[in-house]
């Protein structure tokens, strides 16, 4: 296997083995997302507003807020015991480190989302089964953009004392285009609109995914340098 791919897969393997042993990341993200949804259920009167109108916003707030918890942990684990230094001393391109962490974050967050979706469906009494494929596509596009930018910014914030505060402050404003896109698309999907009617939003979200990944590739070298 190409050395770059083997290094990326080694980082993903290492993150998975660590998570399987500790279960810190998944349990924290899942419980937080569940709590967010529960709080909204009790605070929104679903006899006045339609679940399909408020649902998309609530779903993405749960995904993004709990995902931020995961991103915060992502590079902190690398900083413990100087592990990041060990990674940077390996004959690996810095982008291999970025892509390894990006894939780990993407997979962890996606698994958490797959667990949250059925609960969301039950709590808000929305039948997602018939919209599942387009919804999964939209969730993937949004999660990819979130993780692409979040992985870069968490590597930057991991050097700061106030990293838990700094990551959301840096991340959320830059995520606005993607958040608008995915919330709109999720709303339209729940309203029964076909995917073909939202190609502009898909294009916009996918474009930002590519931009975030491109910017990360260009800047990760400097960000990881001490």
């Amino acid at each position, binding site marked *: 296997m190409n050395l770059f791919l083997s290094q990326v897969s080694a980082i993903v393997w290492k993150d998975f083995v660590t998570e399987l042993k500790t279960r810190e990341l998944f349990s924290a993200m899942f419980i937080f997302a569940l709590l967010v949804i529960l709080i909204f259920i009790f605070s929104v009167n679903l006899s006045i507003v339609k679940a399909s109108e408020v649902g998309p916003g609530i779903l993405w707030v749960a995904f993004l807020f709990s995902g931020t918890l995961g991103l915060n942990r992502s590079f902190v684990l690398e900083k413990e*015991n100087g592990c990041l230094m060990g990674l940077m*001393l*390996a004959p690996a391109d810095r982008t291999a480190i970025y892509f390894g962490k990006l894939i780990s974050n993407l997979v962890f967050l996606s698994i958490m989302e797959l667990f949250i979706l059925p609960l969301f469906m039950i709590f808000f009494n929305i039948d997602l089964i018939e919209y599942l494929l387009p919804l999964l596509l939209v969730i993937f596009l949004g999660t990819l953009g979130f993780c692409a930018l979040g992985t870069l910014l968490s590597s930057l914030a991991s050097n700061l004392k106030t990293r838990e505060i700094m990551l959301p402050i840096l991340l959320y404003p830059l995520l606005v285009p993607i958040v608008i896109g995915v919330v709109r698309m999720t709303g339209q999907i729940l309203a029964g609109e076909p995917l073909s009617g939202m190609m502009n939003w898909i294009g916009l979200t996918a474009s930002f995914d590519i931009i975030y990944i491109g910017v990360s590739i260009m800047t990760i070298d400097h960000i990881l340098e001490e």
Partner: protein
Amino acid sequence: MVDNSKPSPSDNAIEVRQLRKEFGVLKAVDGVSFDLKHGEFLSIFGPNGAGKTTLIKILTGLTRPSSGTARVAGYEVEEGIPAMRREIGVISHSSALYADLTPLENLIFFGKMYGLEHPQESAQTALEDVGLAPRRHDRVRTFSRGMLQRLSIARAILHEPSILFLDEPFTGLDIHASNVLKEHLQTLHNKKRTILMTTHDVSCGLEMCDKVALQVMGQFAFFEDIKDIVKENFETLYFDAVRNNQFTMGIRPH
């Protein structure tokens, strides 16, 4: 244009010329120059804040110098030269090991990162070399400082580098762990590995090395062959440098 991706043949494993690193007004490394031949062992002493760690960071490509040049294993030191990083191993006071993984998992991971053909076998061999094979399935989190340092050695030599950088490796070790570490370093030195070590432990540092340097306020106050040094004189100069964080240039520990 110079091709930095290929090593230039030289008798020296490390060549440093007028290396400087400034953080604002602070000169962490200030015009350091020296050569270290293949298989030689250099001990660098100096008070805290003398710039020893920064020097190692520059030589290992972790940070860029403000000016000056350095060649390590024939490669111009610059960030992002994977070929140079294959030739070096680094042991510092932080272990660079994942606490929730086992020693075997840690070494397999780093073996994969270094592109080793058989990471599992290499990891097993390295663990046996440092006497940690019986604990290979325990979490690193449960290890003592001495065991962590031995595992750090295994990590650093896993890819069989020709040059080793050790940044205060004796910090926090008890006397038994220090002796074990010393034995490992002696074995590596006997195998003709080039070793550059920073330390505060005068007896350990002088016992093992071929060359001695004293770094004070970023500068090399002297860089001498161990044969030309009287240990007691050196100790006096070193303790004086630590106490006052300064050194009168030109004084020699002969």
